[in-house]
């Protein structure tokens, strides 16, 4: 993980600021930094999104491929996650440096997103037991400035919203063999229902309080953080503690409540933004990576 050095006096300054609900950049404890979202940024994927949160930048691309369903759940498709920690983000990720973080992140994402409560996996089924859609979700970290999980989850939700899976026709020939035919029309596609896809909220315990969307400096002052995924209804679907320190049960409860509140408020503006972007259609001026 990208780390920054912070001197003792700076830490004291940050801690006292959080105690007074005024962080170094003027935010309150439950404020997010300014977030920019753009979908459909990579042309050779089925769905993609780029999210920048402060100086954190994440790119997500989703590719749909036909695969075999898992034997336990023959009538469901599934998602595969891969997180690539680019050495562009920080020189520490060079070579195999980012591998450990990448596996940790993708395991968490797998837990949060690959279940039938988040996404209707049955809609990914083509023919039970034989064929299903597998969504390969590739996350690329372009810049790290704290709060990777939240940025990633928002980007994944946006990319899932943007994903267009071609419709398939299954025809069976005389000998009982099945043939899968993809639709030629690029507009004849299936969209995913992202209503229930959760967003992750990371709460960092700093001093006696907790903050949302911590910067790297604030992260350096915190001993432990709680990561919770929240749906638009405010239901908590997953919780995980990260970091070496410990949290007492009371503060875990407090943090969960705060996370629920913040997470719930995250969905409405995100969906509104995604719909607005979609309604612009071809008129939308693509910004991409050079804007």
């Amino acid at each position, binding site marked *: 993980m990208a780390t920054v*050095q*912070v*001197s*003792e*006096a*700076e830490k*004291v*300054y940050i801690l*006292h*600021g959080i*105690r*007074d609900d*005024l*962080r*170094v*950049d*003027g*935010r*309150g404890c*439950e*404020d*997010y*930094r*300014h*977030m*920019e*979202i*753009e979908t459909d940024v990579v042309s050779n994927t089925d769905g993609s999104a780029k999210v*920048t949160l402060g100086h954190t930048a994440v790119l997500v691309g989703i590719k749909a491929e036909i695969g075999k369903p898992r034997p336990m759940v023959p009538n469901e498709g599934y998602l595969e996650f891969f997180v690539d920690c680019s050495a562009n983000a920080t020189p520490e990720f060079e070579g195999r440096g980012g591998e450990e973080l990448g596996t940790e992140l993708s395991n968490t994402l797998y837990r949060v997103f690959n279940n039938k409560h988040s996404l209707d996996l049955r809609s990914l089924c083509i023919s039970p037991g034989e064929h299903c859609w597998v969504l390969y979700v590739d996350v690329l970290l372009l810049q790290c400035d704290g709060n990777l999980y939240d940025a990633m989850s928002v980007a994944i939700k946006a990319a899932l919203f943007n994903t267009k899976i071609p419709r398939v026709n299954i025809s069976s020939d005389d000998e009982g063999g099945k043939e899968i035919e993809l639709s030629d029309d690029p507009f004849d596609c299936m969209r995913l229902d992202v209503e229930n896809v959760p967003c992750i909220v990371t709460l960092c315990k700093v001093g006696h309080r907790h903050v949302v969307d911590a910067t790297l400096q604030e992260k350096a002052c915190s001993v432990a953080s709680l990561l919770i995924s929240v749906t638009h209804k405010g239901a908590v679907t997953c919780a995980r503690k990260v970091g070496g320190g410990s949290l007492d049960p009371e503060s875990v409860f407090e943090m969960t409540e705060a996370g629920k*509140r*913040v997470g719930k*408020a*995250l969905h409405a*503006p*995100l969906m509104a*933004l995604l719909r*607005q*972007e979609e309604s612009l259609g071809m008129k*939308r*001026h693509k*910004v991409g990576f050079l*804007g």
Partner: protein
Amino acid sequence: MAVDMRLPTVKSPPVSVLDRKDLVVPGDVITSDTGFMRGHGTYVDEDKLTASVAGKVQRVDKLICVRPLKTRFNGEVGDVVVGRITEVQQKRWKVETNSRLDSVLLLSSVNLPGGELRRRSAEDELTMREYLHEGDLISAEVQSVFSDGALSLHTRSLKYGKLGQGVLVQLSPSLIKRQKTHFHNLPCGASIILGNNGFVWLYPTPGQQEEEAGGFYTSLEPVSLSDREVISRLRNCLLALAAHKMLLYDTSVLYCYESSLQHQVKDVLKPEVMEEIVMLTQQKLLEQES
């Protein structure tokens, strides 16, 4: 609780920049006249002098250089820098100052508590980490430049030394305007050190009694909320000015601060607010000049 989500916008450069001949990007032909000498940031391509970095063209007699906009810090003797200790070694500290190589701060070029004429004993060498340890921030002056470009720093003045509570803002060194003094007590209630290396330190204006103890004592008393707000606002103003590539010096920072007062501190970083306050600052600076 607030979430601000939006679509990215295309940033188009102001028209005034597009027709300025002295700003170049890599590959731009500066001149095809062969009478000029090739300086830093340029190369000769088919007898044409071409820029190899993005920045401003400078001419001294027959020598043409390009000063890059985005660069590491190239220190000169006398520059004020803000840096972070990265290593404690034999008789020296290594300091990160945004230059290509870590700078060194020799034990013999710091003022130790107990007066200027104190002899440095072997004991001092052993307790170096008590004065400054890894992660600490210091302000210092460039004493000399080694042949490989590494800087040697000194803190032999009461205005330099270890930094206490405050906020560090890391910006591009080319945005800092060279001035007679880089230490300012701004009238808005905070102080600022504009390091030539692009590191800017914002801190509450110190009281009288704190300036003793040789600069190694740091107060860990909580900073008042009003000071904090001023510092946070100044920080966001600096970032806004830097985002619009404005030169940073006491007046520009102060004007920017004044223009931002109608907005909340956290809103200053929103793109449209940044643009607005930077425009206001530019206007004020122009008015002041004329």
